[in-house]
């Protein structure tokens, strides 16, 4: 495979010609925020966080969908780029109900960590606070639209890796929603294999395993009586 030479942040680097610009940037150990990109899935170019500046181009480039080219001069971090990235994250946070303290992914969420790394400490836009449902009809998993950022990783993994294409996107613009099985409750989907790949690739708390949320813990206070009755009265309740 041929190799090209390009400049990233004033440093001359070489990269394989079939690689994406994002790969080349990451190979240099440069940290660049991404949300829709996931190694192993096709690139989408949707979140627009990996945009970089290229000398001689009036337009910014989404590095995940830009192939490396000989002689490119790339800047990955600038005041303009950081500001845009911050604005995009703020737009995402304002779009749905991203309330970390009540979220199963609090502390492990990619949106949360990208926001923290970009220094997003407040949101300058109106919170849209949409009234969105959850789908808990599946035996093992839950789809919570409130946390979804429409990165489509779940769509892609279901289609490209599992080959089931249970998940898709319906509606458009701000009304876009991840749907399951032709927009039917997830639990009734016949194509879903229950593999859980979608849950694993989801960057936020939009897809999660049942039993993991804050309110799902059930305690059995009457266990004490079972023991004591057994011990004292020799009455064993097995049911």
């Amino acid at each position, binding site marked *: 495979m041929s190799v090209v030479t390009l400049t990233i942040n004033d440093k001359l680097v070489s990269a394989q010609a079939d690689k994406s610009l994002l790969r080349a940037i990451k190979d240099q150990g440069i940290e660049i925020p991404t949300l829709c990109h996931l190694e192993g899935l096709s690139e989408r170019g949707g979140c627009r966080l990996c945009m970089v500046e290229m000398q001689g181009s009036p337009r910014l480039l989404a590095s995940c969908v830009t192939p490396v080219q000989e002689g490119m001069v790339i800047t990955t971090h600038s005041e303009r780029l950081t500001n845009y990235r911050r604005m995009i994250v703020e737009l995402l946070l304002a779009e749905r109900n991203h309330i970390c303290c009540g979220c199963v992914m609090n502390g492990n969420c990619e949106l949360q960590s990208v926001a923290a790394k970009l220094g997003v400490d407040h949101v300058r*836009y109106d919170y849209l606070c949409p009234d969105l449902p959850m789908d808990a009809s599946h035996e093992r998993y839950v789809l919570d639209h409130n946390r979804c950022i429409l990165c489509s990783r779940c769509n892609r993994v279901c289609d490209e890796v599992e080959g089931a294409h249970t998940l898709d996107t319906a509606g458009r*613009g701000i009304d876009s929603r991840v749907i399951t099985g032709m927009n039917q409750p997830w639990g009734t989907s016949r194509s879903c294999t229950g593999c859980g790949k979608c849950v694993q690739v989801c960057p936020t708390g939009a897809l999660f395993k049942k039993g993991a949320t804050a309110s799902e813990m059930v305690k059995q206070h009457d266990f004490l009586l079972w023991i004591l009755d057994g011990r004292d009265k020799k009455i064993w309740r097995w049911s």
Partner: protein
Amino acid sequence: MNRTELYALAQSELDRQQKFRCRLLCCASTPCISSGGLAVQEALKKAIETDGLQAEVEAVATGCMGPCSRGPLVTVKMEGKEDVIYENVTPEIAEKIVDKHVRKLSAPELEGRALPSDWPFFVKQKKIVLADSGTIDPEKLDSYIARGGYTALIHALREMSPEEVCEEIVRSGIRGRGGAGYPTGLKWHMVRKAPGERKFVVANGDEGDPGAYMDRTLMESDPHRVLEGMAIAGYAVGADQGYIYVRGEYPLAAKRLERAIKAAERKGMLGMRVMESNFNFRIDIRMGAGAFVCGEETALMASIMGRRGQPVPRPPYPANKGLWGFPTLINNVETFGNIAAIIGQGADWYASHGTEKSKGAKIFALAGKVVNTGLIEVPIGITLREIVYDIGGGIPGGRPFKAAQTGGPSGGCIPAEYLDTPIDYETLQKLGSIMGSGGLIVMDDQSCMPDVAKFFMEFCMDESCGKCSPCRAGTVQMHRMLDKITKGLATMDDLARLEELCLMVKETSLCGLGQTAPNPIYSTLRYFRDEYEAHIKEHHCPAGVCQMAAKP
């Protein structure tokens, strides 16, 4: 079909038409139909039948004649006499038209209903694409052939190599009529040279700008012209399959195109061995399902392939990797409408119209606050003043002209001080607007510019596909800020935040929809910033349009 047969067919149709002493042409495109054109047509036919004059008089359904706001329109063609066009025709008036021109009775009711032949609306236009619209029956192939149809295709197939065809298009200087203005000939060359087992030609008829209906009219009024252009393109780039992507809201256009394709296939102008040559070319129709973004070429191709109509990042460009990964030529239907004229009458003839850098004529849908609204085709380089005041007949009530909006939600406004600048791709861009697909909305002093910007932003917000976050969430926030401004609830900080957001959405969005969505805000801010400030600082709408909310 070969050339001799084609000429014979044209001659026999001309002979047939000349047998009639009077031909009554009744517009049957959507605007006239919606104002009662079909009833008029029926009335004309009935009157002819009652008198038993079927052999002498003919009533024909045609395509658009232009001044749509005055429809239904009827043109009377008499042997050796100048054509007369009647406006606002009702079935009763239709009867009177027959009285006057066929029965030779007096019909005082027709006084003042005939449009003068030296009317500036007609005189200032240069019809290339719409040359036959309004004179031919769009549902009859013979009618198109009688006007010289398909001779350009046969000329290209017989006398020109594919490379020469592309070169002719380059020399004509025509630029893409979809809005961006990319040189058509270069695109053809690119697709011709691109390696690929198969190639495709796609006509983009997914017109979606508010108030624009150029493509619909062309497809409804002269479908064969589009097909002929596509077939020539197919020959030039080496494609054997074409698709016309018709907007879902245009069932009449799709119906007429479908009939046209069937008729052309039956006569050997499309399909296998086109015009008895070795060139095969099929055309199929694909209907949209109501998404504006499908007018964007990559989204359109996704839709044709049966996928969700969302754009994908370019490169690779469709010219290299388009439908199913094969090189694909995508042009607007209006661009294809020009091709037969360029090949038939020569690139030099075509290039003699227009300006240095923008050749030919452009169709505009003239709408808004003008006396004559309708569909016009004007040479590129005409001034806005000529369009508004001569063709459009000025602003109703003599009110002052405030601005003209071109390019729909991706475009901008041209204020009164630029009324005399020539309209071409470069000038409009310099003024902060775009040529666009041809929507032209005239506004008088009763239009509020922040409100106009809000209208277009609402449109973009509704039509954003939702794939990239800046466009999906950004348009919503921009719309909210504009809403606040028009209600008098915004602060100057909000305005600064709006401008910052506009720049971000413009620079980071994935496709043209998002990248150009802030344009209406930019251009209104550029020329009418004082109006924004009046809303914010003075809590007052200068145009008297916006309802101010109570002060918080």
